């Protein structure tokens, strides 16, 4: 006897909406079992992980600060992924956005006019686009694998940042430590609320609305989906695959770049060797968890953000290891993928030949 995956003739619409919810429920059950295995009161653990971070205004703000860059990057990536183009290098575009955007606060720190911030945001977008243009160019001109090129460029960008903050952009008053000067108040994104909520979050919301409009209401959105699902049909309709690749890369690069600039100008307020805990990679999970749908991505971003915050809160209030956060995220992705497989395929028990004879 063996198990076989058999493609379903039709996929259930209802299940494809429900599957992320089922995945979340299964994750919840598994986490509960783990809490019991660890000897932590499961209710206290679940409360610390998922409820406590939502009980204060401060926590909500922190959740938005954490989810903002994830959502902003993920909606950009969703356009790319929908057109069947694989930009895996958002982390690098994020870093380049931060570097380009920081040219003003680091090198032209005297330039403190009201134009400085808009210019920084534009530079951030430009940085991400420049970095995303490389894999797009190589793909459209030489048919190189854009997954590899965009991924490898992540490391190039990170080393460039490392070089800058250790060398030419090092804070002259910083005792040779690897960090840039602190940004001038004029170069820091406006803040709201308790102090950490910054304009970058608003930019993420605008981006979600823009992409929703693009995908649901515009011809371009249709073109992207056609090219992604049936490139030949797209060609007959006069859509260019190369143009779609360029569009997807430049758009996702620009969004990742703005996210990078927002992070350094809104949250860190200087350049340091490490500016991202892997936002560009986590955003890929967010994009798929949100089913490449802008509204779904908002919820997915909030959920993943919550898992980070909850992991931290649980360390403080019930004293469980931060490994729990990693396990949680891993299980979530595992269940989402498993549920998706079962939407497209059914499991079938196939009796092997000798067994058949026996019966």
């Amino acid at each position, binding site marked *: 006897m063996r198990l076989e995956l058999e493609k379903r003739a039709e996929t259930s619409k209802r299940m494809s909406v429900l599957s992320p919810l089922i995945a979340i429920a299964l994750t919840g059950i598994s986490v509960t079992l783990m*809490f*019991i295995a660890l000897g932590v009161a499961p209710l206290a653990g679940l409360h610390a992980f998922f409820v406590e971070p939502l009980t204060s205004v401060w926590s909500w703000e922190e959740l938005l600060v954490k989810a903002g860059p994830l959502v902003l990057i993920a909606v950009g990536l969703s356009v790319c992924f929908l057109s069947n183009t694989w930009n895996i290098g958002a982390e690098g575009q994020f870093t380049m956005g931060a570097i380009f955007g920081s040219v003003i606060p680091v090198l032209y720190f005297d330039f403190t006019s009201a134009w400085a911030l808009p210019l920084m945001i534009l530079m951030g977008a430009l940085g991400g686009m420049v970095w995303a243009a490389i894999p797009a160019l190589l793909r459209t001109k030489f048919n190189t694998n854009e997954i590899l090129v965009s991924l490898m460029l992540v490391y190039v960008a990170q080393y460039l940042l490392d070089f800058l903050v250790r060398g030419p952009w090092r804070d002259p008053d910083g*005792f040779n430590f690897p960090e840039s000067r602190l940004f001038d108040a004029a170069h820091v994104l406006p803040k709201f609320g308790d102090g950490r909520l910054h304009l970058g979050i608003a930019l993420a919301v605008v981006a979600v609305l823009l992409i929703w409009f693009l995908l649901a209401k515009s011809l371009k959105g249709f073109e992207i989906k056609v090219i992604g699902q049936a490139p030949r049909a797209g060609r007959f309709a006069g859509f260019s695959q190369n143009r779609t690749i360029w569009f997807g890369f430049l758009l996702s690069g620009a969004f990742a770049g703005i996210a990078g600039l927002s992070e350094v100008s809104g949250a860190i307020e200087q350049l340091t060797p490490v500016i991202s805990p892997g936002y560009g990679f986590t955003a890929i999970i967010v994009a798929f968890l949100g089913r490449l749908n802008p509204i779904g991505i908002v919820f997915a971003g909030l959920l993943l953000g919550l898992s980070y915050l909850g992991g931290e809160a649980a360390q403080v209030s019930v004293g469980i290891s931060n490994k729990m956060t990693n396990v949680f995220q891993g299980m979530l992705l595992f269940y989402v993928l498993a549920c998706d497989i079962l939407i497209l395929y059914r499991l079938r028990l196939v009796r092997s030949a000798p067994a058949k004879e026996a019966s």
Partner: protein
Amino acid sequence: MRKIVKLAATAAIALGLGTGAALSADPLKVGFIYVGPVGDHGWSYQHDQGRKAIEAKFGDKVETTYIESVPEGADAERAIERLARSGHELIFTTSFGYMNATLKVAKKFPKVKFEHATGYKRAKNVSTYGSRFYQGRYVLGQIAAKVSKVGTAGYIGSFPIPEVVRGMNSFMLGAQSVNPDFKIKTIWVNSWYNPGAEADAAKALIDQGVDVMLQHTDSPAPLQVAQARGIVGFGQASDMIKFAPEAQLTAIVDKWDNYYVDRVQAVMDGSWKSQDTWGGMDTDMVHMAAFTNLDDEIAAEAQKTIDAITAGTFKPFTGPITKQDGSVYLKDGEVAEDGSLLSMNFFIKGVDDKLPN
């Protein structure tokens, strides 16, 4: 079904245990932020030893909490603020990259006291503290030059920040006091804690013929590789003898216990003030692990140096010292000031490596 009942029962018991702890008098809440996992057996592990020392000393008069593996960046500020908001009155942030985040949170919580390790920015409620690890590295240099047959040590660096550069220079001064032609081969792994990369670097260095290994990274991996390949080395940050019983000669142990206990006591007494502490062998903040796998004669010699540094009669950075580019750093008999040590960004003569700038 029975399984579910059993689970529910376990849950109920666990719940009861979890919420049953009643609090007596208000204990002082002390929080820690670690950059690595407490199980790194290096940097974060040693800070956690300090936390345990606080618990051992003050018992139920304190309550300690830690958050581990906190990335340096925007996340650090949130983690620190979480501790400040949950009633912690004294918070230790134990990595250089937390500096500005610590200051920002400190501004918002003027009544909470902060202690930032290895930084240089202070405020009314922010102290800084660090350790003169370079003193230990001088001793390692002396030992390495005596045990090495080929006259070359492998040196795994993390980041070329002043602390690491200072340690490297101090090691070379110690080695040159024994063998003026002593050499080091260097590999930078650009990480504080990456056992895989550290082990690869160690293997590469051994393949290049070094017969003593040392590292300024936090995992025991390089020492384990040294043991497997039959050469000797040193533990870093904690006593790593269990990982390499035949290879470890000694280790520089970061001992924060006394300092942490003192600072908690100061908060309890109401005598806590913002200050800068740079402790060394004299306060046992730099602590050398027992000598193992070493000739008695070499061990005795090393102990003499340790005693001299502890007593303050000898300082590793004493002239004449020439920089790598040939210019004079310290004239004969001149002793380096702390300021120039803290911002050190050049190699001394004899180091072949270039600063990766």
